[in-house]
């Protein structure tokens, strides 16, 4: 395949990823059925993992799929299932809150976009982009040498999260009984 054709496909795939993310985000926000929201969120997260590929990190893209799409969305579905049936009578959206939300999101978007557009982006001195910098081997090396302390503290975070989950669940069981 010649380069221009290849570039066209890559460009097209990029915009498909953008469309996937934005439509997923829209589904995550607009429908009133919360299960659709979760599925939309999963779609948006898949789109984001596509962006990580475009940014050159296969590892982060894979982890995005594994953790966010695979685990966190599942956990959200379980959380919905153990909550009270929300879809029985869905209260109408209050217009005030919707406008407030739109306002907050707009302000944040304009702020972030303005900052990003106004910045004169330059590559940091001495930084040459190499795809191999983001290889899994390099990440493993960095994680266990330079970031070894972070690595060990992360295991503490996981431990604390497990204790928290078990305690919280035990708590709700007692309340319901």
């Amino acid at each position, binding site marked *: 395949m010649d380069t221009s054709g290849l570039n066209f496909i890559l460009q097209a795939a990029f915009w498909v990823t953008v469309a996937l993310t934005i439509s997923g985000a829209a589904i995550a926000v607009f429908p009133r059925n919360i299960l659709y929201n979760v599925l939309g969120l999963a779609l948006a997260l898949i789109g984001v993992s596509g962006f990580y590929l475009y940014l050159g990190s296969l590892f982060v893209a894979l982890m995005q799929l594994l953790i966010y799409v695979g685990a966190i969305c599942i956990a959200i579905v379980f959380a919905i299932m153990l909550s009270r049936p929300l879809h029985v009578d869905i209260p109408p959206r209050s217009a005030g809150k919707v406008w407030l939300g739109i306002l907050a999101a707009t302000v944040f978007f304009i*702020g*972030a976009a*303005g*900052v990003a557009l*106004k*910045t004169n982006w330059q590559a*940091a001195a001495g*930084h040459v982009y190499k795809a191999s910098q983001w290889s899994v081997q390099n990440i493993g090396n960095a994680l266990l*040498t*330079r*970031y*070894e*302390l*972070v690595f060990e*503290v*992360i295991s*503490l*975070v996981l*431990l*604390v*999260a497990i*204790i*928290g989950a*078990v*305690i*919280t669940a*035990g*708590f*709700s069981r*007692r*309340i319901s009984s």
Partner: protein
Amino acid sequence: MVTFKVILPANDYMAVLPQIVLVSTALLVLMMGVFKKLVNASAPGFTALAGSLLALGCVLFVGHHGAPSSTFGGMVLVDGFSFFLSLVICIIIALTILVSLNYGNFFNCMRTGEYYSLLLMAGVGMIFMATAGNLILLFVALETMSISIYALTGFHKKQLKSSEAALKYFLLGAFGSAFLLYGFAFIYGATGSLDIIKIAGFIKTHPQMLNMKFLVAAFVLTIAGIGFKISMVPFHMWTPDTYEGAPTSVTGFMATGVKAAAFAALIRVILVPLAPMQHSWVTIMWIAAFLTMTVGNIIALVQDNIKRMLAYSSIAHAGYILLGFLAGTGLAQAGMLYYLMVYAFMNIGAFGVVALLCKKGEEYTSISDFAGLGFKYPLLGLVMSVFLFSLAGIPPTGGFMGKFYLFTQALRSGYVWLVVAAGVNSVISIYYYLRVVVVMYFSPQASENSIVLGSVSPGIVIALATAATAVLVMGIFPSYFFSLAGNSIFSLM
């Protein structure tokens, strides 16, 4: 055949010795809690106490001598600042455990292994936050601390208020963490580094950076994230509900430890490295400090629940400490450190007294419950008065000296009106602190609802006595502690 070669990085493991001790104890305590048949029911608490004292000993033993340095490739900073805050946090952990040991006699769930384990783990997170030289470690440490505290907040298993508190804190706290992480990403984007020292160096050598909106956005997001943790107005909404719903021993821990660690992060990440851009944050922080003091004090005036009152008072105190942040000089930073130390003693003391006034499965938290306490239990009344006087900033307590230092430094840096506002606020605050003292000594005791001290273990006596003595000593002989704080400031060479 795989041949392993031993490459031991030249890391200074002594620098993280207190954390290692605390983690090991936490794991041990957690296992003691689940293997109930093998150990005594009160063993986890006492093991945790021993571990925290050992960690305190390690902090003092390792100490800090000589020039500031860093280890683990810049991950951990070894300097006076690390030493001072590790010391304060270890004291906070030990005092909290002493208070909890007694509190557990009223509430059985507070005697479990996981309670003490989470307490120690939160402490590890706090110490790492204060000693971190890298934004990633700082964030992971913050999460360790926060998740532990969320779980601890919901520890009153039979009270819906406690779970409401935990949920509120969790949702808003997670939101705050997201802001903080976004801010860190902006800092990385602007400076190309995650190492605090390198960030500071980059900003110093690239003064044109300071006009970049990018860095301002980084500042705003980071301050919002840390603002949640120090309950700075307008990010204070969760504070009263969470402080009220959480177990009182945890509230004391949360009010002192989290605040000490978060202020340490504020100094480490913003105050010192971003000091050249101070002109762009003066207005916003001026308003934030003013609102934090005023909102906290005004709303505290009308509280009838002592935990809520102390929650609003803790908001107000965050505002006083922000004066030091605004002043920004080395001496002001020393004032902040001194204040954090006094604040730890007086607040854990006040919450410790509240935690003592319980009966099985129930707490006395209404201020009217304190009626006549001063005559019925003279020593307890005296100790509580010391803490309240110190919180109000009345001499000869440490609270007065702390405010004095902070206000003086802010005046020297030219924040006259803000100091005037802080002074007015202090006067207002005297009203609601003294109201408790008045109720304790001058209110007739309601006979049918009088407090009878249930269990008073030696531990809590030691804790309250230590805290009260420390508050008085720091007020009467402040120069030693102030020079200790002055030697512990974080500055760049």
